[in-house]
């Protein structure tokens, strides 16, 4: 919710002007961005470690000290050695980082499964939900943007133009509860006890997707407003292009670039929103694993999920940054034609 609202208002982070515009070869730019991405992922892991370990209530020590943890003294020693609980923080951090670099995320303090297997088990459910939500939000954004230009009547257009700001103001747990109330309890279109059914997934995706489509729609509308006045659109129209084809070919295409630069933020929002949506709809997934990890103070799981989120965000961002110079030739020109993207 937080970041996307901003993305709608400020310029989405364009690839660093200094990097590409100076005319360095593409692969140098790509390598630099890659190195930067690796650094940010490692730093994000350090940050989550610092936040979880230094803040009061060291969960590992508490869990191990709990006589009801069901661990034998030998097992306790094992876990202590693994995380280096007795060693200084900086050594613990180094151990955690070197484990992370080898792809190990540790073991859950509660279920004693490895964090990697926990995440791997939950990920397909969340991907299904997030994919559905993404698709719904893209379609909704396109419909709103189309309506904002071509709906008959100024009144109708201004109503649909205010839809994004309404969507941004409704928390997704409220949307979820309303959808469940009407479509499950009253109209029985899906069963809350079986939330993974196609219809159940659709409504969960709708709850997650509605707040996400708002900034997308705002960027689309702003770009359409900007492009509609351009001469080439008038020319295309005078040559008899139908409205729908004009919309698809000449108006949506130039708006793709800002949408691509928002992709990472959208991925982040999908992961953050999944925690709530999965809880509201009673679905399995990364969100519900995280919810349980928080209530059990299961530090390694929590840290693993934060690492996963950071990796997803950074990788999507990297792809977007690598793609955008290829998508828009104007970015490549450097000094001459600066890319101008209208934002609301």
């Amino acid at each position: 919710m937080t970041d996307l609202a901003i993305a709608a208002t400020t310029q989405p982070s364009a690839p660093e002007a200094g990097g590409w515009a100076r005319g360095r070869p593409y692969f140098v730019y790509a390598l630099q961005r890659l190195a930067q991405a690796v650094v940010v992922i490692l730093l994000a892991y350090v940050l989550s470690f610092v936040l979880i370990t230094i803040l009061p209530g060291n969960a590992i020590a508490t869990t191990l000290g709990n006589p009801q943890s069901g661990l034998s003294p030998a097992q306790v020693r094992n876990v202590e050695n693994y995380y280096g609980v007795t060693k200084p923080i900086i050594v613990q951090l180094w151990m955690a980082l070197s484990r992370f670099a080898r792809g190990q995320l540790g073991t859950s303090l509660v279920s004693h499964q490895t964090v990697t297997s926990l995440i791997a088990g939950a990920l397909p459910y969340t991907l299904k939900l997030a994919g559905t939500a993404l698709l719904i939000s893209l379609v909704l954004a396109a419909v709103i943007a189309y309506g904002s230009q071509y709906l008959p009547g100024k009144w109708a257009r201004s109503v649909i133009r205010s839809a994004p700001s309404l969507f941004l103001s409704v928390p997704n747990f409220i949307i979820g509860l309303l959808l469940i109330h009407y479509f499950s309890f009253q109209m029985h279109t899906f069963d809350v006890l079986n939330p993974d059914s196609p219809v159940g997934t659709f409504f969960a995706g709708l709850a997650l997707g509605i707040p996400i489509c708002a900034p997308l729609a705002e960027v689309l509308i702003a770009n359409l407003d900007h492009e509609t006045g351009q001469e080439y659109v008038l020319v295309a129209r005078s040559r008899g292009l139908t409205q729908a084809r004009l919309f698809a070919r000449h108006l949506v295409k130039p708006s793709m670039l800002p949408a691509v630069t928002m992709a990472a933020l959208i991925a982040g929002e999908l992961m953050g929103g999944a925690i709530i949506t999965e809880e509201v709809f009673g679905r399995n997934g990364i969100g519900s694993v995280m919810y349980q990890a928080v209530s059990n103070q299961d530090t390694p799981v929590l840290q693993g999920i934060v690492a996963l989120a950071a990796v997803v965000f950074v990788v999507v961002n990297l792809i977007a940054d690598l793609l955008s110079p290829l998508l828009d030739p104007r970015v490549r020109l450097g000094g001459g034609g600066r890319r101008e993207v209208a934002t609301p």
Partner: protein
Amino acid sequence: MSIAIAPRPAQPPARRLTAAARSAFTTVPPSVLLSFIVVLIVLLWSLFPALFTSYSAVTANPADKFLGPGAQHWLGTDDLGRDEFARVVYGARSSVGTAVVAVAIGLFAGGLIGLLAGFVGGWVDAVLGRLVDTLLAIPGFLLAVVVVTGLGFTTLNAAIATGIASVAIFARLMRAETLKVRHSVFVESSYLQGGSRNYVLFRHVLPNAYRSVVALAVLQLGSAIIVIAALAFLGYGSPPPASDWGLLVAAGQNDATAPWLVYGPAIVIVITVLSINRISRWLRKTS
């Protein structure tokens, strides 16, 4: 066509401010005025809740449980017979008041980071830039959940977590604004005329960044309310009998026969955030 550029008479700041206020008042669209009224009422709820309801938010009154909304109880009563409207009014402080705290944290920490990065530049900018990248890489809500898990589940901690999660956004905007001003001609000439760093900072950089940062802060207030409500909804705020709006929605969800217990607080959240976003949009458009 002739363009006359009349030198504007230098006005003392105070008079300029009142003039701006007067012209703002006559040009404010009605929907923005309405939004200001809504926000004012909600802020008054959080400051003086007792003025707005005669019911108690915590005392149980079993004889009146599950009454529907009506003249006596505007938003109905809950499973213990407490007036839902009173619970909403008394919950405003921990739902909206804490959002102000969250925005203040993000504004000061993020503003300082962005100002340093943009104004000092060099390696300071590089180091702070990586820090901001890192904060941005963890989705805001996830970061808030992790921080509130570490700090412990109270509403104030949820607000602190929400504030920390928004530091990066403020830092990025502040840095961009600072850079924009720093490389402008008037700042260069100010330096040439012997202006000190501090003079440039307080005379040029901060006043120029002010409008857009305020617009962002207002927008952040709306999303902070949503994030804090979501944290409370998940049970990461103060436990009952606290009546955070998110908590009220979560509690109301348990009584399927009394849907007003969900609708009441939900509508209050939506109207409040909608009004704040409307104000922010207007600020951005006029700045």
